[in-house]
């Protein structure tokens, strides 16, 4: 074994990239759940975003347009979930799971002609000056733009929930929809917007895989990332900054265990492979879960 082979600077830099798709999907789901809606269809929206983003990016030769296409695709699919759960009051857990199944099928059909094609390249930003700072520069300032977009969305979500009036309304709707309704807020409208935001973010997360990480379209390429995103939201106790912690913890342990393996560290591989999941559980036990939004998962019907 050879610890000197593990470069902590590069490790931290790569965990930022590794965490990005989960972070993007998770921040969307966080907003959805803060509005009181539990959408278990993140995986389905991610994979749909991945294929939509890929199709648009290949068609226009622009990764940026691809990401927009992915966000639109994810949001459109989430509308289906929103319509069923908000207007037809269907059970959210089951509808979310059905959405995942639907999304997997839809994406596979849409992507049929796109196998074996490479996405247009999406170069890293080496931010001048900041990128040259020793240690910090390579860790923080030499990534592709979507890493920063992800961080901006997290920061924006935090500010929105904490300071914006609309954010307050959203939280009120999530905490107690009867009371929010009594105060004259449009519960269903707020939730629909939140659901679409969640779909768009999941779409971006999926497209990060198909346009940056892999970058190619293959069926089922999200390989369960949506489920991890769901878990990270719970881990974060529905708070944006803890979301960052959760995604980096999960991504970090994943990268670290691969590093230990490559360095020949004598821990059986299967235990190393389990470590990201076990670490997430262990940290959550120590930090305790915060309280879930009061109306999470419940259907709302204005009975007057």
């Amino acid at each position, binding site marked *: 074994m050879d610890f000197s*082979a*593990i*470069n902590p600077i*590069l*490790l931290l830099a*790569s965990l930022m*990239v*590794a965490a990005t*798709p989960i972070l993007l999907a998770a921040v969307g789901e966080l907003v959805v759940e803060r509005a009181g809606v539990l959408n278990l269809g993140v995986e389905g929206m991610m994979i749909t975003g991945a294929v939509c983003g890929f199709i648009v990016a290949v068609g226009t030769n622009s990764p940026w347009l691809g990401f927009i296409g992915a966000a639109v695709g994810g949001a459109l699919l989430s509308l289906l979930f929103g319509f069923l759960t908000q207007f037809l009051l269907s059970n959210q857990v089951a509808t979310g799971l059905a959405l995942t199944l639907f999304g997997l099928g839809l994406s*596979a059909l849409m*992507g*049929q002609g796109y*196998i*074996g*094609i*490479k996405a247009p390249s999406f170069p*890293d930003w080496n931010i001048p000056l900041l990128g040259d700072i020793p240690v910090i520069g390579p860790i923080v300032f030499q990534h592709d733009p979507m890493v920063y977009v992800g961080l901006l969305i997290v920061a924006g979500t935090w500010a929105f929930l904490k300071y914006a009036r609309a954010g307050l309304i959203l939280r009120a709707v999530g905490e107690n929809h009867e009371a929010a309704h009594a105060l004259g807020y449009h519960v269903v409208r707020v939730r629909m917007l939140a659901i679409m935001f969640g779909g768009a973010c999941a779409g971006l997360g999926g497209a990060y*895989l198909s346009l*940056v*990480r*892999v*970058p*190619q*379209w*293959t*069926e*089922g*390429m999200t*390989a*369960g*990332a949506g489920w991890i995103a769901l878990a990270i939201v719970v881990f974060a106790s529905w708070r944006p900054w803890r979301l960052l912690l959760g995604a980096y913890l999960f991504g970090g342990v*994943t*990268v670290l265990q*691969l*590093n230990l*393996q*490559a*360095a*020949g560290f*004598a821990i*059986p*591989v*299967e235990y190393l*492979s389990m470590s990201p999941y076990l670490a997430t559980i262990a940290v959550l036990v120590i930090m305790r879960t915060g309280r879930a939004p009061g109306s999470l998962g419940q259907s709302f019907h204005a009975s007057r």
Partner: protein
Amino acid sequence: MMTMNRILAGAAVALGLATGAFADGHEKTKVGFVYVGPVGDGGWTYEHDQGRLAVEEHFGDAVETVYVESVPEGPDAERVMTQMALGGADLIFTTSFGYMDQTINVAGKFPDVKFEHATGFKQADNVSVYSARFYEGRAVQGHIAGQMTESNIIGYIASFPIPEVIRGINSAYLHAKEVNPDVEFKIVWAYTWFDPAKEAEAATVLIEQGADVILQHTDSTAPQAAAQAAGNVVTFGQASDMAEFAPFPRVSSIIDNWAPYYIARTQAVIDGTWESTSTWDGIAPGMVGIGEITDAVPAEVKASAEAMVESMRSGEYHPFTGPINKQDGSVWLSDGEVADDGTLAGMNFYVEGLTGDIPQ
């Protein structure tokens, strides 16, 4: 159980599914394929489906092919095979190791339907087994990789610790070592055949730890992308050509080419000459394809690699030719001795020079 067998066998006969039914030329030969992944996986299943399409193209209207994708190993596979047999298939290819016992079970119930099981070892009167000697391709990779590396560190993304994968590691290592005695292998076990995110992370980690050549035994192109991002890292295509990453980082590839075999076996069924066989083909019959070696590889390395391919094609050279020691230093093959297929098929040890343990 016996009653079931008789009913099924009876049904097969009654419905005229026996081989004789199409000997008169009035019926199409029906060939079934059971896939473990989606046809759009761009790797293992994708290449098998390319083989199926080649069969369709080759025989035209004389043959009808059917397939079911993403069939889990276990009772689902057994049902799909039974259903294909009931539906009149004359020949069924089951394309995953995990279908082994199910293939044998179903074959027992349909003695007149021919089965071909990929990468397994259980044969029956109507069950053939076939596999590819991918380690021949790995030898070529090792040969090129050993000369391309400047850091002398080669990263290897392995999937599961099974003989197929271990054989590949050993073959690549032996031939890298041959041309570069200082070479070192860093192996990461991903415990997955296909998970782009994890593969990308594994590749990044290996690159960060100094590897400037990445070999992969997983199916996605994520490691290629990671290598491209790093800039000066060499990769090889796996399962499919991955030519979209040529000429660099992808400098060559191992391609699963099942088409010649599938066409030959279908022809045998049509001719009525099909027999239960055990096939383990390599470069020579074209089951293992070596993708174009790009100009990113120095001309003399390319030439020697191509010479190596030729010597394996002609049968002159076997990648596991002694002297080879096992990892613990004990002698495996003495000078000039060639590995027997039995040992290769069940290979569960590293050769001398590799570090670390095989996960158990």
